[in-house]
């Protein structure tokens, strides 16, 4: 494993058994997460974003399992973990998570202090007054004023944004190396979203965290991500730096995704939307999973799954369009305009 890679997915397959049928939620994903970076995984609902990150914490639902491949972390293969005991050494301690809905992710019957204290005791090895002080400090660190009073309060006494701060306080009280933010702002007010993203970013800098954002909101991505991985139907179709993916996207799905951003459309024009529905992952996907929804799909897209083609050392995409033999297919107009803007100013 490369020196600066902290977490590495290698040919990962994740399957779920549902009513006797097998669903291939993750289909052979390879992805490196670099130490200290901020990676955003984007994709529509059901594309496997959350499953991918949960597989690295042993938090798949009971009917899901890793069917193949490896997840390398610190020289260990997390995909080979079988017992809860092995996972307890990773959960929280190495990788922590902030979930989507702060209204439901805190125990309503315990004070927020008690819930932070649980993490402090487990991962900072503190007891008694020292543990309490650390928990109060965690509240202060996430920008909650009067942490001493707030420590003794219950979740229902907090607003949505404040609860998400508490969830973040719990996560950082674990002292993790990697922080997974699973749609951290989706359930929040637009005005609060920016505050939460700023908070995570400042904590990342302060604590030297690696952050992985899961989101379908490209606006969030543009604000926080160093790199972007675009997921479709259980696969990463394109990955690259933020600029590369936004200004020089190569996969037709990325084109479609960016074209459907309201910010890119012109006033008065109908907003672009992707035709069709994602493939049924209960069946085996042949060729490029996006081909049936792609009006410009090539013949080979329906037959053979494309490999990754490197666009630059940091940018690669899984599409036959990048094959030297492929015909020249122009991206839609919105995307061409983006290229011209290139580098200057975000979406």
């Amino acid at each position, binding site marked *: 494993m490369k020196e600066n890679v902290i977490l590495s997915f290698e040919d990962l397959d994740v399957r779920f058994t549902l009513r006797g049928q097998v669903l291939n939620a993750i289909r052979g994903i390879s992805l490196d997460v670099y130490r200290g970076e901020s990676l955003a995984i984007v994709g529509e609902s059901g594309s496997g974003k959350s499953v991918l990150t949960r597989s690295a914490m042993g938090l798949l639902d009971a009917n899901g399992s890793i069917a193949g491949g490896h997840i390398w972390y610190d020289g260990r293969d997390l995909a080979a973990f079988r017992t809860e005991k092995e996972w307890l050494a990773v*959960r929280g301690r190495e990788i922590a998570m902030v979930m989507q809905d702060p209204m439901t992710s805190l125990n*309503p019957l*315990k004070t927020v202090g008690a819930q932070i204290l649980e993490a402090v005791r487990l991962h900072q090895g503190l007891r008694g007054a020292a543990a309490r002080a650390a928990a109060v400090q965690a509240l202060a660190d996430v920008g909650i004023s009067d942490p001493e009073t707030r420590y003794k309060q219950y979740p229902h006494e907090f607003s949505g944004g404040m609860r998400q701060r508490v969830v973040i306080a719990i996560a950082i009280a674990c002292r993790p190396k990697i922080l997974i933010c699973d749609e951290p702002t989706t359930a929040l007010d637009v005005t609060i979203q920016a505050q939460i993203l700023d908070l995570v970013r400042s904590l990342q800098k302060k604590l030297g965290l690696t952050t992985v954002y899961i989101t379908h909101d490209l606006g969030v991505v543009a604000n926080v991500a160093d790199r972007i991985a675009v997921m479709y139907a259980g696969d990463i179709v394109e990955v690259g730096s933020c600029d590369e993916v936004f200004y020089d996207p190569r996969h037709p799905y990325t084109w479609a995704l960016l074209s459907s951003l309201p910010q890119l459309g012109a006033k008065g024009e109908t907003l672009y939307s992707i035709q069709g529905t994602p493939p049924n992952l209960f069946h085996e996907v042949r060729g490029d999973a996006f081909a049936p929804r792609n009006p410009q799909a090539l013949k080979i897209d329906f037959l053979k799954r494309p490999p990754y083609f490197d666009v630059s050392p940091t940018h690669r995409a899984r599409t036959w369009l990048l094959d030297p033999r492929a015909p020249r297919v122009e991206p839609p107009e919105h995307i061409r305009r983006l290229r011209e803007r290139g580098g200057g100013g975000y979406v």
Partner: protein
Amino acid sequence: MLKYILKRVLRACVTLFIIITILFALLRLMPIEGYFDSFDKVSSTEIQVKLNSLGLNDPLPKQLARFYGQLLNGDLGTSNIYRRGVSINTIVAEKIPISVKFGLVSFALSLVMGLALGIWMAHSTRTRFKIGDRLGTVLIVVVQAVPSAVYHIVIQFLGSQYAGIPMLFSENEPISYILPVLSLSIGNTAYYAMWLRRYMVDEANKDYVLLARAKGVPGGAISRRHIFRNAMVPLVQYIPGSVLSTLMGSLYVESLYSIPGMGGLLVTAIKRQDNTLVQALVLIYAVVSILGLLFGDILMAVVDPRISLSKKEGAR
């Protein structure tokens, strides 16, 4: 919190007052035979003398005021037929301790067995074949579906035939307590198991459990600290009621094992038209039910921080 409790207590007092008044009004409608043990043999003058001495010929408001006054002094009146001339306080004081003793022991037993079964079932839903859950469900369905008289008799039959336990209760034989306690506890056991399992399964699927797992809390601690505790909240509301209702005894089990408890008293009193005894017993039952609900509400507020502080009530 204090305001919440005061409000509930006040509401309970008002309810009780209304019940007492209605009860009084209803009993004035009962035939006066209910105040004589051999109505046919007494002359009409004797009847009038008796009614006068009981104050039943006084104007109604005066009777009502006297009734309230007696109750406030803790006097439930005197039995006229069931045990003539004996104070109802005495009758009840003899019977209540027996019923309460059986009731409390079987309540404790059903709580322990029911919660243990519920926890086992909830855990077993996460295993492959769900054996515990299936077995528990069979037990619960049988107990709920079969009329209780049937399984009470089965227990009595099996216990006395094969385990050699005496068929009837006798005060000096501790072994004879076993079967009635078992019979009394089985219904509640199924009840607690069913609801605890259901609430625990509900809680286990909530987001905060996932977050607790994500922060690295071991499974056992999550079950104890988060899932079990939260699943108990809706159940504790019924516990005071269950404890208090042991005062009333069990009609069927007590007669099956000839236990001289409270169980059959009301039925006997009604059958023999002992007006004052009926009145006193209905009153006791009403007080027990109201207090059960009141304490349930208070206990609920103690364990659930969201209740006492929320401004709107009745959201449950």
